[in-house]
């Protein structure tokens, strides 16, 4: 247990020591999105009845930053440790692969939620928000962060170089988050794109998270939650299997 707590707190310290870059910068990015898209589209787009566009936008931006930062935390930490070689300190220690997994994912969840909370606090100053079902919001934030933390760990394990990880981040994670309905409701999309959006697991996380705010969503939140849980279990299982085998960590 002490091994897990140590690795977990080391991972927390790692991003807290550079919190300007790991927390403040992504909060600022989200605020810029809000200012630009809010300004451009306010009054031109109505998604839910009685909900202004900027209010609709905020939960999506919050969740997007939760997801992107959870992914960034575990993936960048692991790839840096692999490249600099200091991963050896963890590999030499009597830390089980389950503790390894839990520590990296838990720290990613904390970073994701910290950035998400930061975005929420700052945007709440500009936009009036309701919170119809806070438990749904919390459940999706937590599970979404865990899923992306695990996905980041997976990418960190498989990647050997920074550019491989960057490719995964830029060509998989970024498009999937941007096309997940952060800026629009998928009901406004033509048939094919709407269908494709349903194949994007990120869509369910954003949609379910938003349900907690407005009590309205494109898909029933229970269905979304089921899909997110299932995705997490699949990624977690894959991660644990790779960690147990020592894939690309132990020769």
């Amino acid at each position: 247990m002490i091994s897990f707590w140590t690795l977990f707190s080391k991972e927390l310290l790692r991003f807290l020591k550079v919190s300007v870059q790991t927390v403040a910068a992504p909060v600022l990015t989200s605020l810029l999105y809000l200012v630009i898209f809010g300004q451009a589209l306010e009054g031109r787009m109505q998604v839910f009845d009685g909900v202004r566009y900027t209010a609709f936008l905020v939960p999506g931006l919050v969740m997007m930053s939760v997801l992107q930062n959870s992914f960034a935390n575990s993936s960048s930490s692991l790839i840096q440790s692999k490249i600099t070689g200091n991963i050896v300190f963890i590999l030499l220690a009597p830390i089980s692969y389950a503790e390894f997994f839990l520590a990296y994912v838990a720290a990613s969840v904390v970073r994701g939620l910290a950035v998400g909370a930061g975005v929420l606090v700052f945007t709440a100053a500009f936009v009036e928000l309701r919170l119809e079902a806070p438990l749904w919001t919390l459940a999706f934030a937590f599970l979404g962060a865990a899923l992306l933390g695990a996905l980041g760990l997976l990418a960190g394990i498989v990647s050997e170089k920074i550019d491989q990880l960057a490719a995964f981040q830029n060509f998989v994670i970024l498009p999937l988050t941007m096309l997940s309905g952060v800026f629009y409701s998928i009901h406004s999309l033509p048939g094919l794109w709407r269908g494709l959006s349903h194949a994007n697991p990120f869509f369910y996380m954003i949609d379910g998270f938003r349900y907690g705010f407005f009590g309205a969503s494109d898909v029933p939140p229970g269905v979304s939650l089921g899909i997110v849980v299932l995705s997490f279990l699949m990624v977690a299982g894959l991660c644990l299997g790779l960690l147990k085998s020592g894939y690309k960590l132990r020769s």
Partner: protein
Amino acid sequence: MHALSGVSLAIEQGEFFGLLGPNGAGKTTLINVIAGLARADAGSVTVLGADVAVDYRRARRMLGVVPQELVFDPFFTVRETLRIQSGYFGIRGNDVWIDEVMHHLDLTAKADANMRSLSGGMKRRVLIAQALVHKPPVIVLDEPTAGVDVELRQGLWQFVRRLNRDGHTIVLTTHYLEEAEVHCSRIAMLKAGRLVALDSTRNLLASVSGSRITAHVMARDGSRHTFQIDGYAQLERELARLRQQGVEIADIELERPDLEQVFLRLTS
């Protein structure tokens, strides 16, 4: 192609054991297998009875490994690094021992310095301290003095010898054969992944030329006389013989067998 093949050896508890061999012989691979950083295709390794693959948590608790590469985590200070490493091994509140280790490795003044700001030699000391935070009964040093200045080298050996006297088993790989000769009581030599020698340091040295001493005598007339003796007691007799022959001695050079000769003979 295997990095190691058919290597079978037992290191006794409390031993100061040397693992020698040319580059690419498989020394680091062997250490990585012992430490669990690499997995053997076949065979097994146990550390004080714990199998490194099956019972890996127990095996790793008994091992302190100083890796060859100068690695560090740039986010932390020396003290933080050592506290974190203690925690990985399940130890909390380890500051008394951490202070002691830092003291012996002359790191106290740098305790709160960031790892990034340390010189190479200092980083090497922190690596050694990290391997010792959990007081492992077996300490593995993979090329510990590579790139380390003379002063630290002396201090380091003093500390390692003390650990050995206190009952820690030491396993050392080094390129500096004289270090192995001075410190190790037993030595294994690897070549191309195979064990080519495994014996006490004394026996290995004796094997070169029956532990004989070679003497080179330079005469005033420029001639050179070389002979072998079994001990220094014989030297006077041989010199007397030369004088009788009219040789005026200008200089004498004595050459004792060293590990380098053993090493060259076995690995070339």
